[in-house]
């Protein structure tokens, strides 16, 4: 018997295709799960609209549901209900361990350049805040590049959106 709890457990095993240390549940992109008569509906919000992993995430979530013997429907929700504040505390910890600085809290307004240029961002390797912005953009839409002057290591910073 498929239950919502079992679907959530299965989705917690679905790795993000680009940062496999975190799952789709850690990322907070699973908005809702409904189970009815063996049919499972998963509501999913993309992180970034230009994310090339979007389709792959959707397929892997559908596969995970099929693995429970249920028929999946994965609906993509295109609104602003996802922000980086949705990434779970466990997700933050996993990101940091893998060398990605987790996103700063969103705060009241939109992020501004002066904030990114401040040295308040912590290096995921040595925990120093003596870091500077190298590039607003990085290898994927969700990441910026920073440099740690303390351990002389460039690192990837999750953008706050």
């Amino acid at each position, binding site marked *: 018997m498929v239950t919502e709890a079992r679907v959530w457990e299965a989705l917690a095993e679905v790795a993000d295709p680009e940062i496999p240390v975190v799952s789709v549940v850690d990322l907070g992109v699973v908005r809702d799960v409904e189970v009815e008569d063996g049919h499972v509906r998963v509501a999913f919000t993309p992180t*970034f*609209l*230009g*994310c*090339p992993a979007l389709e792959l995430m959707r397929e892997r979530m559908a596969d995970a549901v099929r693995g429970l013997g249920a028929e999946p429907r994965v609906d993509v929700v*295109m*609104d*602003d209900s*996802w*922000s980086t504040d949705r990434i779970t505390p466990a997700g933050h910890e996993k990101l940091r361990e893998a060398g990605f600085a987790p996103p700063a809290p969103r705060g009241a307004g*939109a*992020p*501004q*350049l002066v904030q*990114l240029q401040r040295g308040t961002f912590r290096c995921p390797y040595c925990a120093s805040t003596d870091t500077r912005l*190298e*590039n*607003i*953009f*990085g*290898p*994927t*839409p969700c990441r910026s*590049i920073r440099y740690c002057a303390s351990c002389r290591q460039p690192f990837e910073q999750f*953008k706050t*959106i």
Partner: protein
Amino acid sequence: MSAQAPSRTDLLLAIADDELVVGWRNSEWTGIAPFLEEDVAFSSIAQGEIGHARAFYELAATELGTTADALAFDRRPDEYRCAPLVELRFVPDWARTIARHYLYETADAIRIAGLKESEWDELAGLAAKVEREEVYHLMHAQMWADRLAASTDGRRRFDEAVTELWPYALGLLEGEERERLAETVGREPVDAVERGAHTDELVPLWDEMTMVRRSAPGAEW
């Protein structure tokens, strides 16, 4: 301006076409930008814009009973509704590239803020999501405008390029939003280069952009 008010899918296609074509133009810097950081930045911005185009096309496609890919790639060049500003090819001119980037992102922020108030819930929701991402594009554009303005030669070349492109930038927006753009940029409104007629640069762009899809009609990607 046509006598008949454009439908909501016409408006949506205009925005989607702008995003697709400006994304295409931005991607032309991939591999050849003045330095590595900008290679990464313009590539990432291009990916973002094309992602937004896809989302707008998908919304239009549900209304029109077609697909996002068909809207993006199966129309004839004269059926595109993009503004002439995004069609212009600037590689390897960095000053004009940054001038367009600055004008486009500034105008786009005004347009997105308006769409968030749309009575069409799906569009308002999508606009709110797009806005979160576009903040970084605008930030990048303003950073470069400031950087060019910090040197005498840079300021002269940037100002010349903004002056040249200003009538085109106004053509991105309609009505009151044009006045808001003029206030934000600090320029007087002039006669806009309107949407509708295309520049000579669209056909070569279209030819390249749709080449793969036209080479294998009906293929699944």
